[in-house]
Structure formats: C-alpha cells, structure tokens
C-alpha cells in the first residue's frame, strides 16, 4: 500500500497536470461548441506553437512565457483565416465528419513542415526554473508545472470573462446555443464563428509555450495528445468550456493517483475507460449542463 506522503504527492501532481490538460483542451471545446468542428489538428498547433516559442527564445532571446505576446495574435489571425477560408466551405450537415478529415490533413501538413524546418531532432527549452521545485510540507511542486497551472488558470479566467461579460462573448454563446435565432436577432454569426475559432487557436499558442518548458518535443509528438484531449472534452460535455476544465482536472488527478498506486499503463487507459463510461451512462458528458451536445 502506498504511503500517505506518496498519495499526497500524486494528488498534488495530478492537480497541476489537470490544470495543464484544461488549458490544452479549452480550444477543442470552443471549436466544437461554436461550429461542431472536431479539430484533430489542435495538438499539432500546440506543438507548432512550442516550436515558435523555441525559435523566439533561442533566436530573439525572449523568455518562453513572453513569446505568447507574439504567438497569440498570430494564432488568432491564423484561426480566423482557417475558419473563413477552409472550414466555412464545408457543408453544415456533414461538418463533424468532414472537419475530422480536413483538420487531420492540417495536422499532417504541420507535422511535415516542422520536420522539414526543424528536422526530427528533439528540441527543448530549459529556463532556470525548469527543474527546480517548491517544497511544501514534504510535497514537491515543480515550478514548471506551477507555471503551467498558473497560465492555465489565467487563460481560462480570460476566456470565462470573454464569454460571459463581453458583447462578443454573448453573441458567441448565442451562436453556440441557437445559430438561427442568433441570426434573427441580428448577430453576424459567420463573423462571430470565425472569431470564435481564432480564440480557440489562440489558446493553442499559450498551451504550446507551456508545453515547451515542460517537455521536450519533436514533430510527431502531437499524436500522443489527440486521444487524451478528445476524451477530456467528451467526458466534460462536448462544447462546454467549463465542463472540459472540470473533466481535465478530474482526469489529471485520476491519472496521477493511478500512476502512483497501480502503474502507467492503467493510468493512460483511465482516459478511455472514462470515455466509455461517459458514452454508456451519460453521452452528453458529465459537466456540460443541458446544452452540451450528445456525442
């Protein structure tokens, strides 16, 4: 039986990792919520952002966290462009399915381009704080994870304010809830949809910067994340940003506790076990509220 201190350590790491998952999956919920797009390329964009962070850090000497001042606007613009130029052309009836194909192609293009530009070698960013940790009552809290958690909290808070308080957020939520009705009250739903996609992709820029300081990366690294992040948004309730955040925390903690008590193979499997349970018991997800899409 694992000791109490080990369980506590596992719990602490789980919460920190869960925060990271929440950040990485927030964009996915937005895409699905706003336009029923299953964005398989989201993890590829995360690693694209990680590589850009790497370049800006090494070539321009920017702190990895400051690079988001450059990458966030860039990704926002790219997101709007992708939605208006590509995704908007897909037929609405087959959106969920065709968007998988389209974004799968994007993921391959990004992976190939990263391979051509940066080669297949592993890259990593190692700021001073990357391998230090805070000792809290004998539990070690690594600084890179703490920073990741902090960035996740800030990003999600910003997203929350954007969605709940601003006029744009209200139109976006209206578009999510009932596009036809939203159009009837005068919301330019096409424009709102494009901007919503841009916001989703902008979260990938923040996520990429955080990933870059936590883990070494290579062009094909994104495949390992697709399954995990998709499982999170289904468990959370498709289309619900808060639901995904709660599910991310839950799965982060479960994964970590299973890791310290059982083993890594079972821990990875937890994501899929929760996915199956959700589909069996509550296909609309656990934390999405009544508007979450049935999977």
């Amino acid at each position, binding site marked *: 039986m694992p000791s109490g201190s080990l369980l506590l*350590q*596992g719990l602490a790491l789980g919460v920190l990792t869960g925060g990271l998952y929440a950040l990485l999956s927030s964009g996915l919920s937005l895409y699905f919520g706003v336009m029923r797009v299953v964005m398989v390329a989201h993890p590829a964009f995360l690693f694209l952002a990680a590589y850009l962070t790497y370049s800006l850090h090494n070539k321009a000497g920017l702190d990895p966290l400051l690079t988001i001042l450059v990458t966030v606007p860039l990704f926002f613009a790219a997101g709007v462009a992708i939605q208006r130029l590509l995704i908007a052309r897909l037929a609405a009836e087959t959106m969920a399915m065709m968007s998988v194909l389209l974004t799968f192609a994007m993921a391959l293009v990004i*992976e190939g381009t990263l391979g051509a530009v940066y080669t297949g070698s592993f890259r990593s960013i190692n700021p001073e704080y990357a*391998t230090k*940790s805070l000792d809290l009552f004998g539990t070690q809290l690594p600084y890179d994870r703490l920073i990741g958690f902090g960035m996740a909290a800030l990003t999600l808070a910003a997203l929350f304010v954007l969605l709940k308080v601003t006029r744009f957020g209200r139109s976006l939520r209206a578009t999510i809830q009932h596009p036809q009705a939203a159009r009837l009250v005068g919301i330019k739903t096409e424009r709102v949809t494009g901007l919503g996609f841009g916001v989703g992709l902008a979260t990938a820029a923040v996520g990429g910067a955080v990933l870059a300081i936590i*883990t070494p990366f290579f062009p094909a690294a994104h495949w*390992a994340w697709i399954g995990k992040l998709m499982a999170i948004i289904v468990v959370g309730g498709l289309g619900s940003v808060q639901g995904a955040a709660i599910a991310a925390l839950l799965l982060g903690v479960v994964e970590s506790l299973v*890791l310290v008590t059982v083993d890594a193979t079972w821990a990875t499997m937890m994501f899929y076990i929760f996915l199956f349970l959700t589909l069996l018991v509550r296909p609309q997800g656990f934390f999405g509220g009544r508007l979450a899409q049935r999977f």
Partner: protein
Amino acid sequence: MVKTTRVRAGLAILAVVSLALGACSKDEEPAKNASGPIKIGISLPLTGDFSEPGKGIKEGYELWAETVNASGGMLGRQVELIFRDDASDPNRVVSDYESLITQDKVNLVFGPFSSRLVIPAAQVAEDNTMLFVEPAGAAKEVFTQGFKYLFYAAPAVANDHYNYLAEYILALPADQRPKTAAYASLDDPFAKGTAYGLRDKLAAGGIKTVADEVYPPENTDFAAIAARIASKKPEIFVGGTQFEDSVGMLRALQELKVQPKLVAFSTGPTLPEFPEAVKGASEGVLSPVGWALNATYPTNKEFVEAHKKKFGKEPSEDQANGFTVGQVVAAAVKAVGCADPTKDCQTKLAEHIRGGKFDTVVGPLSFDDNGRPEQAHMIQQYIKGKVEIVLPKSSAVQTAELLFPKPAW
C-alpha cells in the same frame, strides 16, 4: 463547361498512356537486372515516432553506398538504394518490403529501425528467402521467431547491453556497492530488454529491486512515476528509455530531489541533443553504446571523416549502425560472388554471414545460429560535459575512469 470536360479527357488519356508506359518499362527491368546496378530495397521510419533514428540510419546507408560506389561498386556493379518511408507503422513496413521485393525486384534488402518494425519486416524477407541484415532490432523477440535470414549488425542484443556495467557494479567492494535499485522502462521490446538484462543480473548479485515501472509509449507525464521511485530512495536508477522519456524521467527525478549514486539510461544520452535538453544534469549519467567516435577499429576513422565531409557533422550510433549493415552485406557479396534475389544466392549469403567474422566500424562481428551478434556494448559516461568511454576497463576503447558515485544533480 465544354472546355473543362475536354481538359479532363485529355488528362485522363495522359494518365492512361503514362500508366501503360510505366508498365512497359517495369516489364523490361528483369532482363537488365543482371548487369545494371545492384538495387537495395530499404524501408525506414522517416516520419512518425522513430523518424529521428530512421533518418540517422538512412545517412549511414547513403554514406556506405557512396563509399562502395567510389571504389568501383560491388562485383563491379554500382549500388543503388531505394528508400521507402514506413512512417514508423508496422503495417506499412510490411507492404513496403513486399513491393520492394516483388515490384521493384531489388537484389538485396537492408533492415529498418527498431525491433517493433524489424520483426514484421523480417517475416516478409523470410517468406521471400531474402537475406535480412538489420541495424536496430535488438530485442530478444527478434531472435526467437526462427528467422534463418536475419542478422543484427551491431555488437550485442538488448539484454546484454549493460553487461560491463553489471560486472563493474557487482565487483565493487561490499561497503561501496549500492544495495537498492529502481527501474523504469518504456513498454518497448528493446528498451525493456536493456533494463531487464541489467535488473536480472543485479538482482542475482544481491542488489534489491525496490521499484520496477513500465510505461506505454504514449505516456506524456513522468512526474508521478518519478514520485513512486522517489518514495523508495533507490541508490541506482536505470531507465529503459528512448530519448523523450529519458529527458522527461531525468527532469522529473530532479524535481522530486531524488539523488541516486548511479544513473543509467538506455538510449537518450547517446544522442547529441541530450546535454542541452537536461542542462547540467547529464554529469555522471551512464549509457550503453555500440559504437564510439574515436574507436580504433579498422575503417572507423575513414567512416567518421567521410561522414563529416558528406553531412558536415560527426556521425552518431545510428549512422554507424546503418554503415555496419552495408559493410557486412558487402563482405558477404564479395566472398560469395553473387547478389541476385534468388533463393540459391540469398541462402549462400546467409550461410556465409553465419559462419564468418566481419570487420566493421563497430568492431569485429560474428553471429550465432539465430542471427544474434556475440559481442558486447561499451558503457559511456558524461564526465565534465564530455562523452567518455568508461567500460570495458583497461581496453583500447576506454578513455576515462568511471565516475562513481555520480555528482548530485
């Protein structure tokens, strides 16, 4: 509308004609085969999980082909390499070798990277009675399939990689010898094989195994695994790793303030990106290595020079392994005097390799009945930021004394 239809019709005709032409030229190939270039078919993981080592092996193969061609080729014929990209996918690697053998009608095949791809690929070669010398399939499962045409062109199989280190640890005086060891390994036949080879020898020598973890390749989080290991305070830590996980594991152990006296990782530290990825923490880290830059084996110096000239950088173990495959096959082709894809010729080549001893850049190689190499890996260590060969002791390849216990990270 009319215009586009016409253009489409034109394109269709063009496509049909070019297909027909393609088919014709294929039919003529076998006739030229005996005198044209010797074609060697190779599938490698140039994208996907193994793209990095896959590209390294490719460079080794290319350099070998260039070296051979510069000295007049094999049997007076030029060598031509045909590469396929299997994207690290065991299904793709099978169809790659099938089409290389049946459609491209290659004379010889060379192996891909990693045990996971070597086993399915070797089965195709076996079914077509083609010699299959491979650069990177060291797991014990590779040699228990009953393959007759497979040879692993490197010094040792996975389980024997740490042999010199095991001898060293068990020979330490009792008061210095560590008493506990922890292992964490990627769920991959090669990576597990290396760690378990050492684990079994140390356990038999009385060093207690306090943790023994396995994680799947898609694992992205090492903090919790490290927490389990940290709670046991092991004196030895061994990682059965590839690159990404060796860095992840090392950083996680550092963050949890674990300080083992001896740390070894299977593959990561042998790559040039390692010291940068872990900053100062590489000091004292051990790793088995099948090839050394400054080893004095015949042809090694020439290999290193030629590699620097062609690619503008020093070769690593991957390039050396690819080059070694070429050297072994070339020696066999020269001795037997044939390079045809016939059962007769391929069997003769395999018989020759089974019975012979071959001088290569990784040292002299010989093979047992199942294609296992019969030599051992050297052990390298980062000392003052430089890679030194520390074991085997008092051998020609040793460049420094092993640093034990390792400095804290």
